[in-house]
């Protein structure tokens, strides 16, 4: 299970059977340059693999105003 904290929405989403950053982004319907993805303070590129229990921060980059 992967836990995703989505910003700036403030939502928390649990994802099962998700093994890479690009899979997380696909589930969120985001392209790789539409959000930054952080695990334990480290930025991750879309090709990085994930492991069960990982917690990610996904911050969308498009400013709303």
């Amino acid at each position, binding site marked *: 299970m992967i836990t995703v904290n989505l*910003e*700036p929405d403030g939502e928390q989403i649990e994802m099962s059977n998700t093994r890479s950053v690009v899979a997380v982004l696909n589930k969120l319907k985001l*392209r*790789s*340059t*539409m959000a*930054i993805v*952080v695990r334990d303070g*480290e*930025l*991750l*590129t*879309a*090709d990085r693999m994930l492991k069960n229990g990982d917690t990610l921060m996904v*911050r969308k*980059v*498009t*400013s*709303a*105003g």
Partner: protein
Amino acid sequence: MKCIRCKKTACVALPSHHSGFCKDCFPLFFTKQVETAIRREKMFTHDERILVALSGGKDSLALMLELKLQGYDVTGLHIDLGIPNSSEKARKKVEGFCELHDLNLRVFEMEKWGLPIPDVKQHVKRPVCAVCGKMKRHHFNRIAREEGFDVLATGHNLDDEVARLFANTLRWDTAYLSDQGPTLPASDGFVRKVKPLFRLSEFETANYAFLKGIEIHSDPCPYASGASFTHHKELWGELEYRSPGQKFQFYQSFLKKGKPAFANLEKEIGDELKPCEECGSPTSAETCSVCRIKAAVKVSKAKAEAE
């Protein structure tokens, strides 16, 4: 993916540049893009005083920090819009950021000036985002001129510029298409305006802000829901995914081939500007739109209070 410079594991992948960078090399790439923008577009020199518009978002704070690190003489200007549960948070982020990095900051309060944005929303029938933007541009320019700054810098990035160009093109707005660009030279009543982040995408500034530990104000403006620019950015995000580099090509080609044609057209049909009778800012009417809006809100408020 490996860093294109040092071969360590990359933390930022940039399809439009066919490259990736690690946490140490990405800021060097960012700095180089800003240096290139300043040099090629003749934005400013190390001898000039630069006023940087600070909203509290990632772009303006990243710009301010980067210009300081490059040794420029920068002062921040934050406009407190007076929007409940929003403006105070943005202001706090800006003040905390400037204190942390030992940066000069000036704050202008719309409420003290007599026109907080909630009053605009309540009393002006036009879209609040358009009026708010107009107010901010007016005060950025006025304060820069009154306080002797050589140039006003904003954190507009490539996505902002492409979204704006796209919107202007959809309307074939010749006035806006004639002067959109990374450097707008000073003219009667207007300070020089520059956008040193125009070569960098929102994704790139977001990565830079994160790597530099910049705490940003990321809450969307409570009045900005459904702004058309956001939809345009989504469309362009998809285009860029399919053809990396398309945004930059669209914008650069406009600057080279489109803008000169619109500038010539605007010389023939554009309005002549003169100082506003109330505040002295340049306008094509006797009184500028900002002074007209302020007066209209005053009348509308007095009428509402009398009822």
